[in-house]
């Protein structure tokens, strides 16, 4: 989990959008570069809800650009890269299928173990119940004691189950190397892999696409990011970005962010709307922008240094 993936991390460019499919990359970028993106995929373990979502992670063009400018990531035309599937050698195909089978067997065994321990628990529970019933018949006082025993027994049981579940989810580093030496009665579970690398080789740097085009709000985005803020899309509050003082997993956002060009006319009503909305949800309304236009400087990065920002809150008077 604390591993560092090989850099630059390839970002899939699919139909004009930027996606990440590798959990290692997602965890790493969040931890080291404060890039969170938005999870848009269905979690296979709990698919009928929208509260917790899974991979892929959609990145804003701003996020992708920031990472590319830092040489942390590169952009790959994913549809094109996937065409490489048709050119795999038979030998590579066989090897990859063998690897998948080994991994599938690993999961089959885990599931069998899980079933076994579940069955064991059920048996234990039944026995406890029997014991309880017997105790009840003997004496009322003894029944009370049995009660405590059962509840004590319940706690470790559930935690044991949790441990088994967690074990199943945890990426197991040994699984790919584990030889397929299972009993023949167990058939390997089929797997839909999360990514295509392997079997595809890492796309060579000559195939990387140019850095993503970004909207005029990019300097303010990069400025806030450089100040340690975590940024996410602002649709829910009708602004451009939400700025969080720490990882949005654990912190509420501080600002509703809207960017303006330096001489762009600001409708004062918009300041009231943003300021009032922000105050209502205990957030500040932050406006800002770069003093220099892109024509006046060499790169977007130079504009970031000229950003000025202002925080607004309702005065309460």
């Amino acid at each position, binding site marked *: 989990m604390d591993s560092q993936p090989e850099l630059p991390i390839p970002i899939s460019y699919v139909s004009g959008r930027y996606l990440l499919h590798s959990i290692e990359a997602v965890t790493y970028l969040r931890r080291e570069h404060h890039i969170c993106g938005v999870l848009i995929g269905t979690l296979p373990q709990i698919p009928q809800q929208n509260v917790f979502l899974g991979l892929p992670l959609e990145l804003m063009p701003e996020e992708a650009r920031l990472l590319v400018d830092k040489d942390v990531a590169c952009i790959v035309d994913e549809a094109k890269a996937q065409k490489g599937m048709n050119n795999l050698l038979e030998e590579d195909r066989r090897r990859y299928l063998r690897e998948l089978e080994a991994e599938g067997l690993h999961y089959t065994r885990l599931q069998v173990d899980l079933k076994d321990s579940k069955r064991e628990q059920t048996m234990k529970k039944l026995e406890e119940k029997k014991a309880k019933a017997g105790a009840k018949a003997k004496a009322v006082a003894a029944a009370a004691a049995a009660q405590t025993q059962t509840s004590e027994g319940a706690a470790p049981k559930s935690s044991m189950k949790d441990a088994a579940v967690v074990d199943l989810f945890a990426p197991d580093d040994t699984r790919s190397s584990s030889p397929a030496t299972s009993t023949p009665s167990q058939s390997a579970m089929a797997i839909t892999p999360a990514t295509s690398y392997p079997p595809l080789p890492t796309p060579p740097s000559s195939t990387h696409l140019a850095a993503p085009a970004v909207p005029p709000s990019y300097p303010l985005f990069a400025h806030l990011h450089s100040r340690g803020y975590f940024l996410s899309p602002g649709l829910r509050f009708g602004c451009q970005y939400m*700025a969080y003082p720490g990882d949005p997993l654990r912190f509420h956002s501080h600002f509703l962010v809207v960017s303006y060009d*330096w001489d762009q*006319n600001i409708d004062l*009503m918009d300041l009231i709307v943003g*300021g009032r909305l922000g*105050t209502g949800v205990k957030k500040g309304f*932050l*406006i800002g922008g770069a003093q220099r236009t892109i024509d006046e400087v060499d790169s977007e990065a130079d504009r970031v240094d000229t950003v000025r920002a*202002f925080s607004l809150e309702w005065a309460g008077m």
Partner: protein
Amino acid sequence: MAQTTRPNASAITSHMSTNNDSAPHIATAAQVQHNLQHQHLWTSLTSYTIPANTTQTEPLNAPKEPIPLISGYPPHRVYTHPDEQLYMLENKIKEDDLQPERMFVVPTTQGQSWSLRHMAVVFDKLPEFVEQAREQDGGSLGVKAADDPEKREQLARYYAKKEEVSRTGEWGSQRLLLAMIDKGMGGDGTVAYYVVQEGEVKPRQN
């Protein structure tokens, strides 16, 4: 039939017409000043003007139109930074113990031009006006005399801390009030006030 007579001009209209300048920014300033004085009971109101600049080549040059500015003492504190509030709470300092602070206000009106440049220029010029106002006040308000020596020491520590954080920006940086007059459908005299601070200043939580 009774003879129709024109009603007397309202207080605000006569106030605005006594300021003999017809420039719109002066009228706006006059209306906001009137509102501060009579609705919000501010005292020692003073007005200023940031002059216009005709060349606009540099990002930090003033905009084409002059920007008015007002300062005064509100009856109660308008804004306390969350960390300052925490400090006050921990050190049992009440707002009443503290000397009032002069607050600056930028009067604006709906539909006027406004931009980041306007905002930045106001903040850049603000220290000059703060200094000017300090000389004008001449320390006449002074530190409120605290009878209790313990309290006196506490307040001294507070002011020392305040001096320190004014350099670090820990309790927020420069701030002012943006006053906005509603002119929609002729306007109803409502003035909305927003606290504006330079940079990213975390929101208050109450």
